[in-house]
Every structure is written in C-alpha cells, then in structure tokens.
C-alpha cells in the first residue's frame, strides 16, 4: 500500500516501466483523426482526377464561358453558365428569405424573448433544421408551387422561386443559431452602458449588439449561402430539370447539385464524357463552397477571440 511506504520514511521514486499500451492508444486515436484528413484527400482526388480528364476533352474556357449546357445531346455543349446561373438564382432568392428572418429570429431570441419563451422557441426552430430536405422538396412541389401558380408567380409545375422560398425557410435556423451564439457572447456591460445613455431596446440591439457581433453574423450568412449552394433535394424535386440561363425566378432551372444528382443516379458508363461531367461540375461546386466555408470559419474564430 502506498500509505505504508510513505510512513516508512525514505521513499524511493523511480520511473515506472514504460507503458506500451499508452502509446498504442495514442496511435489508434491519431489514426481515427487521420480518417477525416483522408476524407478530404479522397474528395479532392476523386473529384479532380476525372475533372482534369474532362478538361482534356473540353477546354476550361469553353466550360466557363459557354452558355449552353447539353452534355447528353448531339452535338454536345458543355457551357456551365446555365447551371451556375441556376445555382446563383436559387441561392440568392433563398438568402433573401433566410438572412433577414434568420437575423430577426436571432435578435428576438437573444435580446427580446423571456427565458421561458426561449426555452420553447429555440427547440422548435431546431426541429425546422432537422427535417429532411426531401420533405422540403415535397412541400415545395405540392403546396408552394400550386400557391405561386394561383398568384401568377410561376408558369409551370416547377420554378426556381418555389424551391428557393422553401430553402430560405429551411436555412432560418442556420442563420439564427450561429448569430444568436455571437450575440450572446457580447458582454452585458456594453448593453447596460447603452441603456444608461438612454437607448431603447431597438437601439441597443441594432447599434450595440449587432455591430459587436457582426463577424459571427456574417459568418452565419456565409454559411447559410454555402448550404443553399450545396442543397440538392429541394431543387431536384421542385426547380425542374432543364438547364436554363435565366435570372427570372418564375422559370424552371437546373442547379449544379441537381445536375449531379440527376446524372449520377443513373447507370452512366464509367469513363464516358457524361460520367466525367459529374466530376467537373462537382469540382466547381466543391471549390465554390470551400472558399465560402473557410471565410466563415475565419470569421467565427474572430468573434470567439474577441469575447470569449
């Protein structure tokens, strides 16, 4: 027993024998961590190798500047602009819903709501974020599209607008929860100071809390737009399937993600040009979202450094 040794007077301390098990554990854990690095490497390799092959057949300039996307027709056209335009159109309309209402929800939850209200409202909003996107697609197609048609806001069964509106609502919790985190991190002193100078609640919210939390709020905006760009099922179901170079949200469009899903779900022969288009468009999508994600991660780190 250790106590007996202590009472015995001179205690001899010596290095315990090396415990190999401890080292093995550390290596196993590091290997687990390695899997997520390998995932990124795998994504980059599996996207870019076929994409590079694709650009041997189709010039990069032709891909970026072309205005017709018709990979399956003869003669085929590989101009990515219609898909990019469709993606931008849908994401922009979704952002017009998600950003103001998401920020409004965050301000309400952080500055206005009582504790009991927050306890009910926050989990309810979280449910919105947990509903599968295929369900939102169903909702856009069967409820929002007919509604927009009755209002004269869309001509056919499919439109960019119905997909975008539903996607916008889906993204409200994304904006709200990250923005609210940033606002909660703003010290109380700042608010009290503003109240002491005679500000009302709106002035405190808009002129003190929002500016102080701005990097987190912008991070939430960027993250929401990145999600909108990468969202697949809603547009696949409700936006229609024709590549369409337009900025009229009442029309049917195809986004990059919807193209990938529509082409990749079938039996495209490996190595064919149709197969490689999946990777060329996928690589474009990956680069686009990567830039936005890294920007957003940097902003989040900034607000964490300032107040936490």
């Amino acid at each position, binding site marked *: 027993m250790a106590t007996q040794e202590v009472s015995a007077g001179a205690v001899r301390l010596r290095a315990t024998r090396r*415990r190999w098990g*401890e080292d093995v*554990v*550390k290596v*196993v854990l*590091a*290997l*687990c*961590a390695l*899997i*997520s*690095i390998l*995932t990124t490497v795998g*994504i980059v390799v*599996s*996207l870019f190798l076929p994409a590079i092959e694709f650009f041997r057949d189709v010039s990069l300039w032709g891909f970026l500047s072309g205005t017709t996307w018709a990979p399956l027709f003869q003669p085929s056209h590989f101009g990515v602009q219609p898909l990019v335009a469709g993606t931008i159109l849908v994401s922009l309309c979704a952002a017009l*819903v998600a950003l*103001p209402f998401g*920020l*409004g*929800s965050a301000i*309400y939850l952080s500055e206005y709501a009582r504790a009991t209200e927050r306890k009910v*409202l926050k989990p*309810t*909003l979280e*449910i*919105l974020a*947990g*509903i*599968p*996107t*295929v*369900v939102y697609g*169903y*909702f856009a197609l*069967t409820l929002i599209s007919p509604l927009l048609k009755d209002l004269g806001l869309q001509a056919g069964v499919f439109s960019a607008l119905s997909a975008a509106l*539903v996607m916008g609502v889906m993204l*409200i919790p994304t904006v*709200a929860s990250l923005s609210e985190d940033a606002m909660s991190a703003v010290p109380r002193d700042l608010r009290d100071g503003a109240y002491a100078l005679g500000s*009302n609640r*709106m002035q405190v*919210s808009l002129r003190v809390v929002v500016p102080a939390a701005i990097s987190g709020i912008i991070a939430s905006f960027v993250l929401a737009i*990145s*999600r909108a760009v*990468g969202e*697949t*099922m809603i547009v*696949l179901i409700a936006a229609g399937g024709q590549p369409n170079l337009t900025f009229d949200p009442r029309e049917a469009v195809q986004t990059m*993600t919807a193209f*990938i*899903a529509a082409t*990749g*779900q079938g039996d495209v022969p490996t190595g064919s040009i149709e197969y490689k288009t*999946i*990777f060329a468009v*996928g690589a474009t999508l*990956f680069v686009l*979202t990567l830039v936005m*994600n*890294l920007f957003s991660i940097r902003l989040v780190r900034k607000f964490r450094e300032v107040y936490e």
Partner: protein
Amino acid sequence: MSVTTLRAERPRGRTSSAVFKAFLYVSIGVGIATLGTLLITVVAKGWKYVDLVLLLEPPSADPQIAGARPAILATIYLGLLLIAFSVPIGVGTAIYMEEYANRDRWYNRLLEVNIQNLAAVPSIVYGILGLAFLVRGIGLGRVLLAGAMILTLVVLPTVIIAAREAIRAVPDSIRQGAYALGATKWQVIWRQVLPAATPGIATGSILALSRALGETAPLLLVGALTYVSFDPTILGDFTALPVQIYQWVARPQEDFRVLAASGIIVLLAILLTLNAFAIWIRNRYQRKW
C-alpha cells in the same frame, strides 16, 4: 449654482420600435408557421396510407398495395451501421483532439480547420466520393454497405464536434484528481473523462444519426435509386426510406404523392423519436459541473 431641470422627454422612435418589434415577431413566426403548415399538410394528405401495408409490403406499381418495407428495413440497417462506424471513429478523433493534440503543431490546427470545413461540404459531394471511390473505384458496387460508409463520412464531423464539446465540459479537477491517485493518461480518460462525457456524446451522436437518416442526395449517387422488392442485405442492392419518398414524389400521379406523404409521416416519426430520445438523455443524465 445653476439648476438643471430634468423632464421626461417624449420617448422618440416609438413607432420605429414598434415596427422593428413587429418585424422580429414575423421573423420568428415565418419559421414556426411553415413548420406547422408542413406537418399539418403532410399528415392530412398521407394519413390514409399509413397502415400495415405501408410498413410490411414491398413497393409496387399499384399505389393501393405499395409499401416501403425494404426501404424501412434498409434505413434501420443503415442506422445501426452508422452508429457502429461513426461513434468509435468520432469519439476517438475527439479524444485525440481534446486530450492529446498539441495545438501549436501545424498538423493539429490543420485537422481542426479540416473538420470544420468537412462539416459544411455539401452532402452530394460525399456522394460523388462514394460513387467514384467505393462503388466504381474499389468495385464494392451499389450496396447498402457503401451507403452506410458514405453516410458515416457525412456525419463524422458532427459527431466529432459534439464529442469534443462533451469532453471539454468535463472539468479539469477530475483529471487532476485521478492523476494524483497515480492513474495513467489512458486510465484517466477511460475511467473518468469518458463516463462523465457519455451523456453529451450520446445526445450528439443520436442527433447526428437522425440527420443522416434523412439524407437523400449522397445515397442517390451510390445507387439507392433502384426498385428493391426484397428485404435488403448489407452487401446487396438497397433503397432507403428518404430515397423511396423521392421516387414517389417524382411520379406525376396523385396517388403516389399521397404515398410519398405517408412515407414522410413514417420517416418523421422515426426522426422525431430519435430527437426526443436524445433530448431525454440530455435532460436525464447530463450534469452541470
């Protein structure tokens, strides 16, 4: 001495305050009203086909006798495989990052940014990885195991982030106490830190699982969009419940739309049960230190 008179000023900006507050109510109302409308329309439309036929019969061209049995079974199998794959790897990564990694090292900082980015990579990109690497690359084929592996990669960042938060919430005094009694590093982690972090890890993992079981896009690319009339096996063709719903939604006939709504009711019932279970664990077992 001059006398300062203070008088109540007419509060300015009362109208703008009221308008602003109205905007806040609308903001929070839009989300909740949409959620309510969605749930009500789905239940109203799909309720009539939610029965034993839906749960126990294979799909069919006749919506009257069509069920989702193979899809529901595949979703259950996917869930079990997901837990088996993602929890050990995710918790292992989290332990490495929280307890072992030295943050001054560039590779550990890279790991951190890498995981944050992976959490935001569109799920369809994981689908492309699955198609290129698992289905065609190593020739695994369009099987359930490939779907489970890809969904594991999709949820792994979420599991890691949740597990890290749970591990970080365990106070250092517990670790110090165990070290003082002569425990080794792994003994401290295995017997003190992990048991204390288990409720948080369980909650996060179940929430991640419920997110993953609703994923459709990556499964489309690994070939889940097939007609499967038999019970799935791990190394066989499969379709999952969200994919089955997509197949029904994509058909123009009204009866299949109704069937899609019924499938959505079953899917939401599974996911909301999982969510409720996660919240119950959090409320029941999580300790405030």
